[in-house]
């Protein structure tokens, strides 16, 4: 087949696929909706995940051990404790946070100025923020135990633990999302395959006659492949639109919510490259579903 004939054959096949899509608007809409939802789920989760990851990356996850002293500990006692701790083996640097500066900081970041101003006394203790040399869990546990036993120490908090947990959770969520994405991608292939199978059944006479008068497998397959890809394209666009719509709808609320906690955070929509990538992947899955369906049918039928 020459280049001109090849192009003509593809134009014919694309036209036929497009006509089939338009000739069954209700069926097409239903299939596109089902496939679109199947793509929206992993895309939505991915968007959520990237947003959580972005938020987590802004959190300081450097190992930090915070030592809170008793309320009756004086600044001199706190400074003495600082000196003692500096001589410890696993202590890198120490920052002293006075109860006054802690209160001032709290007023600044938590929008609690009015509430804190109404207090007669400062409820915050002096604190020491330690950067340990080793983050080995055993070494850290030992450090915590030693500091806890010191006089005037109320409690010791290793405030990076939750951030590490968040990272682990993000890593787990990423794997879960990949698995879910793969399962739903398979679902897209099967949904498209089933749609095409039903189409094949309605076009069985045409396929039989076409083969009798010289149609190759490629000729038979081509319009179905275009149909599957077109369906995938529409479903991909629907999924992207759904996620963008959700971000536009919920984004302002999320921004307002995080602002009330003294933080600035806005939901990020998938990038143009990601949107195109998802749409192309949906087309590819539609194409694959159609290919498998026609392949199975032709394999069983007589040449």
């Amino acid at each position, binding site marked *: *087949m020459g280049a*001109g*004939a*090849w192009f*003509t*054959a593809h134009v*014919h096949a694309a036209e036929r696929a497009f006509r089939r899509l338009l000739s069954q608007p209700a069926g097409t809409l239903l299939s596109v909706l089902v496939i679109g939802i199947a793509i929206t789920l992993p895309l939505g989760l991915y968007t959520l995940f990237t947003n959580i990851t972005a938020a987590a990356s802004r959190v300081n996850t450097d190992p930090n051990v915070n030592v809170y002293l008793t309320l009756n500990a004086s600044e001199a006692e706190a400074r003495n404790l600082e000196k003692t701790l500096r001589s410890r083996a696993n202590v890198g640097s120490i920052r002293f946070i006075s109860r006054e500066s802690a209160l001032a900081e709290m007023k600044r970041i938590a929008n609690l100025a009015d509430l804190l101003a109404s207090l007669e006394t400062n409820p915050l203790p002096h604190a020491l923020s330690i950067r340990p040399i080793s983050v080995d869990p055993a070494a850290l546990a030992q450090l915590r135990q030693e500091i806890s036993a010191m006089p005037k120490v109320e409690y010791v908090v290793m405030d990076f633990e939750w951030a590490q947990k968040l990272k682990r959770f993000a890593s787990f969520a990423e794997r879960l999302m990949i698995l879910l994405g793969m399962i739903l991608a398979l679902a897209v292939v099967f949904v498209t395959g089933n749609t095409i199978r039903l189409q094949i059944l309605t076009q069985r*006479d*045409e396929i*039989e*006659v*076409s*083969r*009798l*008068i*010289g*149609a*190759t*497998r490629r*000729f038979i397959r081509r319009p179905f492949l275009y149909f599957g890809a077109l369906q995938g394209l529409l479903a991909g666009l629907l999924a992207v639109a759904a996620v963008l719509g959700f971000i536009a709808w919920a984004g302002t609320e999320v921004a307002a919510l995080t602002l009330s906690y003294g933080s600035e955070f806005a939901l990020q929509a998938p990038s143009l490259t990601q949107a195109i990538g998802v749409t192309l992947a949906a087309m590819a899955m539609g194409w694959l579903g159609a290919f498998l369906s026609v392949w199975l049918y032709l394999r069983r039928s007589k*040449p």
Partner: protein
Amino acid sequence: MIAFSNTAKRYPSGFEALKGISCTIEKGEMVAISGRSGAGKSTLLKLAAGIERASQGSVMVNGQNVSQLKEAGLAVMRRNFGLVFQDHKLLFDRNVFENVALPLSIAAFPHAETGKRVRAALDKVGLLNRERSNPVTLSGGEQQRLCIARAIVNRPSILVADEPTGNLDREYAETIIDLFKSFNQVGVTVLLSTHDEGGLARLNCRRLLLDGGKLVP
């Protein structure tokens, strides 16, 4: 040229439709295959067109052994054939024009050329004024002529027709036989089956008589 050499066909049910057929149909020749129902006429035509494969012996078409052709090769070979089926095999979800255009679509003809050829074929069989009709609205004779139009639109070198005049009244049958004669006169090899004695006489061509799957000398 179509050559059968000691060709036999046994169906999976065990029925032996053809037994040791050996004959040759020359290029540009018109041959009528006759015989009673079940004599093997349709099977012989199907073997020539590669729709069925021989169980024994060979079928050569223009130097190619049809039994050894792979699927893609068969498809290419069939494009040189014009097939007129006993049951017409028309597509009732397409109009007359689209039915005739199908072989050209398979061969990836451009739209403009397709239009010209389809109208020429419909004109030849007298259905030009029905191109937008659905085949279901056509009479039996018109459906048969539509099937012929589809078979000739690709300008095939070999025309194979299975009972093209079956179930038609005399007037229609004669029109169709004359059509085949006119195709043969322009060099098309014509191989058709019929059990209509009147049609055979009108065809005035070489005749192969089959009986019980064997050629009667």
